[in-house]
């Protein structure tokens, strides 16, 4: 090893330095161009959302609107009960966070830290369900909830959460708990701590990052979720932001500036969450990819 690195540094310094400098500049140039390309759609939409109706349809487009039509936002957001849509979305997110973190973390704990017959078989089933596309269960679930009289209520979206419907979260918790030492658990058991006590006093407090990752996943999925809320919720007073925006898209099809203001409004909470919680967003994604 030492010989290799020595030989590498023996090379004449200038010959090696110049190409890397060039490459660094080139890399920055490509990255800046790429960043602009990735941000432009968003900038364009925000700029459209601040234009007057007359300024929207200009070509080439002006990116800085003049005058700035701030009133588009109150106008768009009062054209439909977006406050109710927002409240419903938050309500569903909170309900799903409670149900899914509770049920998935407990199952993950049993799979990771308890010794029982059937553990490996059942965990294999968990992994299998990861591969099942949602379409396959869509119709029977709908029929089940229709027969239960749950259509047009939040129950079809909330109740499965309390039954660990997300196999990926079970997997995520299990993988994280696996990395935690057994000694502490055994010590607590000797002191007379129950298994649920081990979970609430030792495992959970030491697993805050994974709870944060899962909670953020749930919020993001919930904001994103469209097909399921659409088939289960029919009354507008129960609409989520995604459903409300889709309705807005149909009714205000021609008023582009209002439509863009509404879609920016729907996006902003996630953008804010993203900037404050970026670490957890990234951890979640990286974990998915590397352990999958």
């Amino acid at each position, binding site marked *: 090893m030492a010989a290799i690195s020595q030989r590498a540094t023996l090379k004449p310094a200038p010959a090696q330095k110049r190409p890397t400098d060039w490459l660094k500049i080139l890399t920055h140039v490509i990255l800046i161009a790429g960043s602009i390309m990735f941000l432009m759609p968003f900038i*364009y939409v925000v700029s459209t959302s601040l234009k007057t109706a007359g300024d929207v349809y200009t070509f080439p487009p002006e990116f800085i609107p003049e005058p700035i039509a701030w009133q588009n936002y109150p106008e768009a957001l009062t054209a439909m009960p977006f406050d109710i849509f927002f409240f419903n979305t938050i309500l569903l997110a909170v309900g799903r966070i409670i149900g899914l973190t509770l049920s998935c973390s407990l199952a993950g704990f049993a799979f990771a830290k308890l010794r029982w017959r059937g553990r490996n078989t059942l965990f294999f089933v968990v992994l299998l369900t990861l591969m099942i596309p949602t379409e396959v269960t869509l119709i029977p679930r709908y029929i089940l909830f229709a027969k239960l009289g749950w259509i047009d209520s939040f129950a079809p979206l909330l109740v499965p959460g309390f039954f660990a419907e997300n196999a990926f979260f079970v997997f995520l918790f299990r993988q994280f708990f696996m990395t935690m030492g057994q000694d502490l658990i055994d010590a607590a058991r000797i002191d007379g701590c129950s298994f649920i006590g081990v979970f609430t006093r030792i495992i959970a407090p030491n697993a805050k990052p994974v709870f944060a990752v899962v909670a953020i996943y749930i919020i993001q999925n919930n904001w994103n979720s469209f097909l399921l809320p659409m088939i289960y919720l029919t009354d507008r007073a129960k609409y989520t932001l995604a459903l409300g925006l889709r309705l807005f898209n149909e009714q205000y099809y021609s008023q582009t500036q209002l439509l863009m203001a509404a879609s920016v409004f729907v996006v902003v909470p996630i953008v804010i969450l993203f900037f404050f919680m970026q670490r957890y967003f990234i951890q979640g994604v990286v974990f998915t990819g590397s352990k999958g």
Partner: protein
Amino acid sequence: MQIHNVFQPKRLSFWESLNAWIFVAPWILGFLLFTGGPILASLVISFTHWDIVNPPQWAGLVNYETMFSDPLFFQSLKVTTIYALLAVPLQIVVGLFIAMLLNTKIRLIGIYRTFFYLPAVLPIVSVAVMWRWILSRDWGLINWFLSLFGVYGPGWLSEPEWALPALILMSLWGVGSGMLIYLAGLQGIPTDLYEAAEVDGAGRWASFVHITLPMISPVILFQLVVGLIAAFQVFAQPFIMTQGGPQNSTLFYLLHLFRNAFEFFRMGYASALSWVLFMYIAVLTLLIFRFSAAWVFYEGEIRNE
């Protein structure tokens, strides 16, 4: 509860097992009620005619036979397959390319990473609404950009030959999560491999082909499978942006299934569609895994779970 039971891993404690079963009980119930049960139910329903309101009628294989005379079934299968074949590899190439750029030791890497990743977290309905405007023929951002080069852009969402490419282009905007996964993979490659290659006189391209690609091939395989499954679940984009048109050029499979189930209330036929899709995805995934042995390189058991 005797203490010594805890320390005997070979003998299972009844109390511990009971606790474990209680902890996994919600998942087991959920699996039976919301996953396992529905999968079997959907197979049974696929052999019936059922509009939910009236009792189901046994149909045997009729629904599966209907598919062969349903031109929209073939159209949706074609659209979704073309989308998967183009969008998934493009997402891999673009995601990997950005990750490679970000894997160099340069400044501002955190800011770049944020910019590239941000679009991937945005809710899909908003993205669809926004992109309908961005892709607008006369006032859209894309055609403005093309006009800078003297290109007169098409009506992306109004011309049958451009609508699907437009959705593929749009999907590249969300390449950020894949990029993060590649970045993590790239950062896990030991640098001494590159140093050794450099000593042996390998250039950048050779290092990329012989070190980088093999080392992250498991990640690429994973992304390929995940991307494929995601491609077959595309729904909101065509539903909001094109309603499957023009001329069914963006009739994605799930959109076709959705219409049969929740607009025409043909639950039997829609269930048959879902089972065919399930099998189709399963076969494609198996094929990918089968042929992955040729190009996926595993470092050995240590890194395997």
